[in-house]
């Protein structure tokens, strides 16, 4: 898993060992195997249902009348099919002027939080991919000494807990406010700056591993022909490295989207918060409304879910390469 990862995804499974029945197996063995196969399939169906159940329960709660939450479990929809409502979503999305819930695009509203999440996640993803690609190019094709040491330093940085850096960074942000008049604390830029820093070690690691698969002769030939480094990067490496960039981008997108800690520390007091912080904040309010929490949770997973299902292959590749993060 250290070198370029094989393109193993959820889809391309290893060849299923079909030839289970040994040549000499009589009919009795075969029927026993059939029984075993049936048991296995039933077991796996049960496991799959068990894994679906939690998400399913949240989905059902988000479509049920809010008042029922305390008095009857969501499973009652099986016997009471008329409890469905779109009210929760309507309320959380539109929320009229008199609405008492954090709704729509108002500061702190559910949709405002989705927008804030995007405002954080998109720049952080683009920056991580761009900066990582540049650094990885330098590490793989660069002509300076000490590349290996720098690479190992970056591997070391991959596991550094962000708690180790976040206190001084917040203080540093405040100092910036005093000296240059721009304090990233409490701003989306501040969150992005932090996310990029902690996305880079893995990003560089991943991109480097993919770039290692590009023949060095290609670059050397370009250099002999007098091409500049920038030209080589743009014309040779980037076109080949698109798949790697996609893996990293999907990974970084989902990673950043799901972050709570960084947003909590840097944006905690801000009226505009990302969706994870929206959910967390709703739980912390005195009269926590579970219908807001459950509906908000469903809203929060729509975008990462779509990204994952759309680019499953790339995401899994990133996960496999980054089994060390």
């Amino acid at each position, binding site marked *: *898993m*250290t070198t370029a990862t094989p393109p193993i995804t959820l889809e391309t499974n290893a060849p299923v060992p079909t030839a289970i029945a040994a040549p000499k197996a009589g009919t009795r063995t075969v029927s026993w195997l059939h029984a075993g196969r049936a048991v296995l399939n039933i077991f796996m169906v049960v496991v799959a249902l068990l894994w679906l159940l939690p998400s399913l329960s949240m989905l059902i709660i988000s479509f049920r009348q809010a008042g029922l939450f305390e008095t*009857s479990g969501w499973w009652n929809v099986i016997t009471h099919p008329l409890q469905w409502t779109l009210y929760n979503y309507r309320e959380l999305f539109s929320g009229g002027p008199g609405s008492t819930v954090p709704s729509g695009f108002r500061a702190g509203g559910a949709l405002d939080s989705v927008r804030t999440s995007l405002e954080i996640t998109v720049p952080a993803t683009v920056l991580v991919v761009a900066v990582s690609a540049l650094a990885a190019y330098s590490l793989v094709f660069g002509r300076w000494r000490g590349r290996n040491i720098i690479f*190992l330093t970056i591997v*070391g*940085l991959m596991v550094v*807990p962000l708690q180790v850096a976040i206190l001084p960074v917040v203080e540093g942000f405040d100092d910036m406010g005093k000296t240059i008049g721009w304090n990233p604390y409490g701003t989306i830029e501040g969150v992005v700056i932090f996310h990029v820093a902690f996305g880079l070690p893995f990003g560089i690691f991943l991109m480097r591993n993919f770039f290692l698969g590009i023949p060095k002769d290609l670059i050397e030939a370009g250099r002999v022909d007098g091409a500049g480094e920038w030209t080589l990067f743009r014309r040779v490496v980037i076109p080949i490295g698109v798949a790697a960039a996609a893996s990293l981008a999907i990974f970084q997108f989902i990673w950043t989207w799901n972050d709570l*800690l960084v947003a909590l520390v840097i944006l905690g007091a801000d009226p505009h918060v990302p969706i994870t912080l929206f959910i967390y904040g709703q739980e912390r309010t005195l009269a926590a409304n579970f219908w807001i929490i459950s509906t908000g949770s469903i809203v929060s*997973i729509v975008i990462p879910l779509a990204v994952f299902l759309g680019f499953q292959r790339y995401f899994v590749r990133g*996960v496999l390469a980054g089994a060390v993060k």
Partner: protein
Amino acid sequence: MAVVTVDEVASPPRRKKGGSLDRPSLREQAASLAFLVPGAIWLLAIVIYPAVVTVKDSFFNETDTKAVGLTNYKNLFTTAETLIAFRNNVIWVIIFPFVVTTIGLVLAVLTERIRWATAFKTVIFLPVVFSVTASSMVFTQIFDTSPQVGVANALIQTVSDWFSPPGAYPLSPGTTAASLASYGATGGPHGTVVTTSAVNAGSAVKIGLTGFPPTTFQALGARQAVLPKPAKGDIVGVVWRDFSANNPTNTSSILPGEDGYPLMHLSLLNTHGSPVASATTGGGGQFVFSNVGPGAYKVSVDASNFAAGFGAGGVGVSWLGGQSLTPTGGLGQTEQALLSVPLVDISMIIAYLWIWAGFTMVVVGAGLAALDRQALEAAKVDGATEWQTLRRVTIPMLAPVLVVVLVTMIINVLKIFDIVINMAYNTSEPGGQASTLASDVYFKGFTNGIHTGLASALAVILFVLVIPAMLFNLKRIKGGGS
């Protein structure tokens, strides 16, 4: 960037004769080095330099104004608050990585044998994509205290009701069956209510009970209480609500408006107190024991009528509350606290297994797919059973992958934070039953203003704890021939 110098000292540049192609000029070196600059600045400014500052801050006081030496570290290892956080990290590290890797291995092996592997893997993998925050909310609801809300308690209730169904007249917590008896009866053994005086065949018995709201028995179809006339050889009687709003002081007569208790299960006890017959009351609370033999008897109202059942009043197991498995015997209070395993940790670990099993399954599955099929086939040809093949061939060959997964999960839970502050929001603050090192860093460092001393020391400890994992990675990646 001192490391670069070290490298150059270690391998001094060797001059090659001629050929400027092998020996890039300074300008050429700088051109490719420039690509590293944005990333290097970012990492230096936001990761490396702040980490150094954190180490420095850990030797200073809370407001970073005075050096205090090792005081912060001493406090970390001596105050009960942080020791609880250490304990919880230990619980997480001991239980979670091993269990989640095992689940991943089992699922990966089993998925190879089904035709719908892609669908299965997608289902198991989905929670990896969700935020831990959203997943925590799902499990907060699953582990809700009320069986009317949480699936976990609802399941326990279903099973419990199967084995010991609740009675028609569940007692509210804190009351005893004996306190219900108001006329002709008193508290009996094992939560029963027994008539005070013995009766013979041919007599009528009145058992007055109070303490249930009318809604309880009206829902069961209660009518005006009536005392039946005894036939020869029978013992008859009534169990009734000995309370009339119009005449509250009369506690012996059956007054108009006083209902009987339907569906009460009764036993007829002989002189040794053993049950010889049973009966159930009708709508007016009346009951009959027919063909009773000679001798003196007492009528007992069974305890099962008053059984509350699991989760009565919407209170089941408090999964996310303060309960814990605590060792007893010869231990001081501090030792007990440090050796106990809070239920909330177990609940969170279950939720976290749901989240991460997909990850371990996919990584182990990738390892499985890359295995040498010939060895597996050879084992099968030699007549090894599936289990033998798995234990003797597959797992040893997979060991490197399993170790990587294990280490990854150890790093993951050392930093455990999101799930703690979401699922255990009442007990995640410093000293709380569920608090961890990472949650302590957050609460001590950032709530109520910024405090650096103790929080920095905690962060440093967290960092020190991941260093073995870091070295493992370095060794692996270096050895991997990169």
